[in-house]
């Protein structure tokens, strides 16, 4: 029997699950190899669990979602969180650094209608996660690779080293060395294919921290390139604002200030 796949979302932009539909060359082959049992973004058909693999996009921001997640964990053999929201809380984790009530009243005229937790947290804060696919958004090739690997039971080729490795493999010049452009690549996990340096800009960290990020060293180098504390903190606090090494590095700079 073909493995049964579920794809669902929490608080997110839908981009990561869209990556599956964006895998134009592989989509039908994947649909042939697995049973897409639950994927509301693409199908009206909802087949009940249990599922062999569940891909979850999005972060946990409401009490309702927190409870829903526990049920999902019970219904699936393997749970894979996909994207920066699901693995680090996403851009909405910026609210973890402020007061949610302020945020709610800023956005909504009638704040009482909105029920939301004070934080945006990754899936792994709530249930056991079997694999995390990083990125804001994930790279569709990594998603296809993950599915292909799961099907044959091998370790997916999803490296945890820095963007610099991909940057050099792609043949980019280092923008930090060649142009003095601050780049987060040395502390960001590979996966995107080092697109930003290929387009002449510094990496802004959408794949989250790499395996052993030396944030202190990069911070002092950025200072020598003229980046102030505020900008450094802002750069750490974007799409993976909730990732522990970025949280810690930001807090350290804040404390020093």
């Amino acid at each position, binding site marked *: 029997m073909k493995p049964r796949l579920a794809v669902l979302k929490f608080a997110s932009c839908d981009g990561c699950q869209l990556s599956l539909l964006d895998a134009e060359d592989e989509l039908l082959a994947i649909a042939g190899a697995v049973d897409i049992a639950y994927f509301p973004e693409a199908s009206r058909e909802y087949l009940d669990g249990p599922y062999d693999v569940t891909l979850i996009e999005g972060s946990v921001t409401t009490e309702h979602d927190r409870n829903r997640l526990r049920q999902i964990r019970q219904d699936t053999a393997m749970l894979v969180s996909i994207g920066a929201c699901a693995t680090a809380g996403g851009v909405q984790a910026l609210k973890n650094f402020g007061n949610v009530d302020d945020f709610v009243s800023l956005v909504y005229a009638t704040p009482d209608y909105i029920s939301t937790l004070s934080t945006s947290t990754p899936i792994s804060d709530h249930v056991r996660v079997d694999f995390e696919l990083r990125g804001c958004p994930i790279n569709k090739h990594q998603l296809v690779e993950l599915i292909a690997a799961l099907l*044959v*039971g*091998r*370790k997916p080729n999803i490296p945890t080293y820095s963007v610099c490795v991909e940057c050099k493999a792609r043949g980019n010049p280092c923008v930090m060395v060649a142009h003095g452009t601050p780049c987060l690549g040395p502390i960001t996990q590979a996966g995107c294919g080092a697109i930003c340096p290929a387009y002449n800009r510094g990496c802004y960290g959408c794949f989250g921290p790499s395996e052993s990020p030396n944030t202190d060293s990069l911070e002092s180098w950025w200072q020598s390139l003229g980046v102030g504390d505020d900008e450094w903190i802002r750069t750490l606090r974007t799409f993976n604002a909730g990732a522990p090494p970025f949280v810690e590095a930001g807090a350290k700079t804040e404390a020093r200030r």
Partner: protein
Amino acid sequence: MDTLNAGSVSAMLPSAFPIVDKDWELADTYTLHFATDGAFDFDPGQMVMISQPGVGEVPISISSNPDVHDRMSLTIRGSGSVTRALGRLDYGDVVGIRGPYGTPWPLDTAIDQDLMIIAGGIGLAPLRSLIYRALARRSDFRNLTLLYGSRDPQSLLFERELHEWRGRFDMEVEITVDRSSPEWMGEVGLVTSLVDRARFSEADAVAMVCGPEIMMHFVGIALTDKGMHPDNIFFSMERNMKCGIGLCGHCQLGAEFLCKDGPVFSLSRIEPLMKVEEL
């Protein structure tokens, strides 16, 4: 020595081998057997790179009798993604094999000496082929001793052979387990305790040791404490190996490429390196 891929397009290209037989040795350890049509020569201590296509490739020592030329066996403990995936294969499935590679146990150094073979856990696999060879050349050596330590009685590898070797008059076999069980009548303790009690003449003995790095480290200490010279103590070393032939760089330990300079090294050569943390 014949190499499977000598002269082929790429030293990285495996040859396809169907599995002709498979035995489960333990709950997590199995032996895969391959028919080699007499074209596969190796010496004990050598390894092959075995691939499951699409899954990955790992180094595995050859555990079969080097003097049986039509068959080759690998004994593998399922510990990670490739070794577990290989464990799911069965009769008829095809794997890729390159090799044999690496340095063999230097058996000639033991001529007219006491030969000590010391194994820990899965380390008995690469030593089994050595034992076959040593028994075939039994008259070359003086005392032949196997010291084998295992986690517990349930994890003893190759029980049939152990039983057979124990029954021989020209070979001494001592076995110990770290953790005992009610039915276990034998020794309990680390292999090093067997070393303390083993009968051999320090000055005229050669030891061949394979097991976890930490076990080898302490066996080395025990043997040298007893007066053996580090030149006569040989370890089979493990490191992450990706190519097996010195091209990928991974297995370096100091200046040694464990795959092509090893995996078998004398203690005198390897000891200074083993002592440096994270080398």
